[in-house]
């Protein structure tokens, strides 16, 4: 069953000099119980996509078009009150990046979780506190820490608190926005383990936003590679890793160093991501693409399915 279907979502940032085309014609869908990774370098529109779906855009974010269908309902038509009460945090919630700052510094963590529960469900304070304790146990913090303040917790425990808060109302879908940034490698591994366990235990659907391909490979079923506001390649994780088709995906995967084997110079992609205020005509990757052809400079390639159910690529090198 399709949980979330995003069709041609377009979101621009309105700035003095025009529109920054941060999310352009993005489409993907997510089955219940599946996990999707949104990958790409900084500024490619991963987080903007999530914020647009969650209606958390700052004042200058403009949704220019598209459809967001969640549980069979069109979200863009829904009024704010209902969205706030019944959808956000109740049905889909977020694990914010940078747990260091995502928690209120002078509120007890238990109160912060309880607040989220009480805002969406008609239950007593006591029941909410009980559930918060259970959640803290679930993410491995331990219910006895319910009265702690964020500054009394380590980075890893803070991130777990943020995860517990995201789970507060048993959501169907969780957005995880770089859930392991600002944590050291060992703690990253622990937090990832928690996330993976939760996926199994609660049959969570997840959209994982990260630039860390390894992390996405470990936690997700499908992956969407974004470049300059567009999804350039989409498919299940194994296919994308084993047989990347888009030149950008190929280079991105090559740019990840391997821990095993001899030291080699790190592969890089020359050039810089384009200025999204004035993206290049045609394929947005063409200025950096070694295989760029005449047509790439003129016409924007459309995403086309290749072998199999999921795999699709937006590149003229592929298909016809």
């Amino acid at each position, binding site marked *: 069953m399709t949980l979330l279907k995003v069709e041609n979502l377009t979101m621009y940032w309105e700035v003095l000099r025009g529109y920054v085309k941060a999310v352009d014609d993005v489409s993907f869908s997510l089955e219940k119980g599946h996990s999707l990774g949104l990958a790409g370098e900084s500024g490619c529109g991963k987080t903007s996509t999530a914020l647009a779906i969650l209606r958390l855009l700052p004042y200058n974010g403009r949704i220019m078009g598209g459809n967001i269908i969640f549980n069979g309902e069109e979200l863009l038509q829904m009024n704010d009150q209902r969205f*706030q*009460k019944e959808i*956000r945090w109740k049905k889909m919630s977020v694990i914010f990046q940078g747990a260091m*700052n*995502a928690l*209120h*510094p*002078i509120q007890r963590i238990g109160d912060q979780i309880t*607040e989220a529960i009480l805002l969406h469900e008609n239950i007593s304070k006591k029941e909410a506190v009980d559930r918060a304790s259970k959640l803290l146990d679930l993410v491995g913090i331990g219910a006895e820490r319910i009265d702690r303040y964020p*500054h009394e917790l380590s980075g890893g425990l803070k991130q777990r608190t943020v995860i517990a808060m995201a789970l507060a109302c048993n959501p169907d879908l969780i957005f995880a926005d770089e859930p392991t940034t600002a944590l050291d490698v060992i703690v990253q591994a622990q937090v990832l383990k928690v996330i993976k366990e939760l996926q199994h235990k609660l049959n969570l659907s997840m959209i994982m936003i990260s630039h860390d391909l390894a992390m996405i490979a470990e936690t997700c079923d499908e992956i969407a590679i974004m470049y300059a506001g567009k999804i350039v390649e989409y498919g299940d994780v194994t296919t994308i890793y084993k047989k990347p088709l888009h030149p950008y995906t190929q280079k991105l995967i090559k740019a990840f160093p391997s821990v095993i084997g001899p030291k080699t110079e790190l592969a890089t992609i020359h050039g810089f991501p384009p200025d999204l205020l004035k993206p290049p005509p045609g394929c947005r990757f063409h200025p950096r693409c070694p295989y760029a052809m005449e047509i790439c400079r003129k016409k924007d390639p459309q995403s086309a399915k290749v072998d199999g159910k999921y795999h699709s690529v937006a590149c003229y090198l592929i298909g016809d």
Partner: protein
Amino acid sequence: MGFRGYFLNRIAIAVAVLFIVLVLNFLIFRVFSPYDPTDMIIDPDFEQATKDRLRAEWGLDRPLFPDQFVLYLKNLLTWNYGRQFDQSKSLIAPQMAWRLRNTLLLLGTATIGVILVGIPLGILAGSRRGSKTDITIIGAGLFTWGVPTFFVQLIWLFVFSATWNSVFGAPLIPRSGVVGLPPPEGLLETLKDVAWHAISPICTLIIAGFGSWALYTRNMMVDALTEDYIQTARAKGVKGRDVLFRHAFRSILPPVATMVALAIPGIVTGAIITESLFGWPGIGAWYINALMNRNHPVAQAVLYNYAVLMIGANLVTDLLYGFLDPRIRVGQRR
């Protein structure tokens, strides 16, 4: 160090600072002052014997230490302040009580008013950053903050007293004083008359003073509202007003409380120019007069009261901070 240790440590520091202030307050007026207090009463050309007689009257003939210093300490620490350096050697305490009442009425109300106007305006402006409301509040705040208080008061008097008088035949507001002449009969009437006289200085103090409160609060709110945890609160579905007060304002409460606590000592020193301008017999006007007339015990008394309150307010702030911000609680759960 536990909380008890922290508390005792703070108290010890406060006492030490107070002692240093007391010593300096004594030295500045009795030792370093180039002026002889008798100058203002006796013609300097008079012979020395006459001056000495007056100095003996005031106790200035006795050794600085221990006699003068001990008496000075005793007078201040018991809050009876001793006697003035004037012909009648009148007691300071009754004057102080009367003037303190006047000043508290004026500055206490004005300070509360400034806080009650400034902080909400700051929150409003900060929550609507970049809007017309924000720009208006910033502009008004900066303007009234930048313009000297007495200028605002002169304009006020010019409009509501002088101009009103020439247009309508009588001034709208009383020009100066605490009560009208002749004083009204009855308690209620007196209170009404005092309030009527206090309106002008209080309003002008609020107009001239709210800006700093509004701008500080606004800037702290703007910072707080861009924090990630505010986005978390919004995402959770916290309503706009609760985001503003329970999340953003709560997080800036510690520094705001500090500002409030440190504004309190100013209440007892009075507003020197305001009190002079509106003929309000308060501490500020008295203090300036005492300085100019070499009436040193009065100046010392005013400074002492200010120091005690300032040190007290700092002590309270230190303790309050730990209460409002769990991050700086000392000696608790690690």
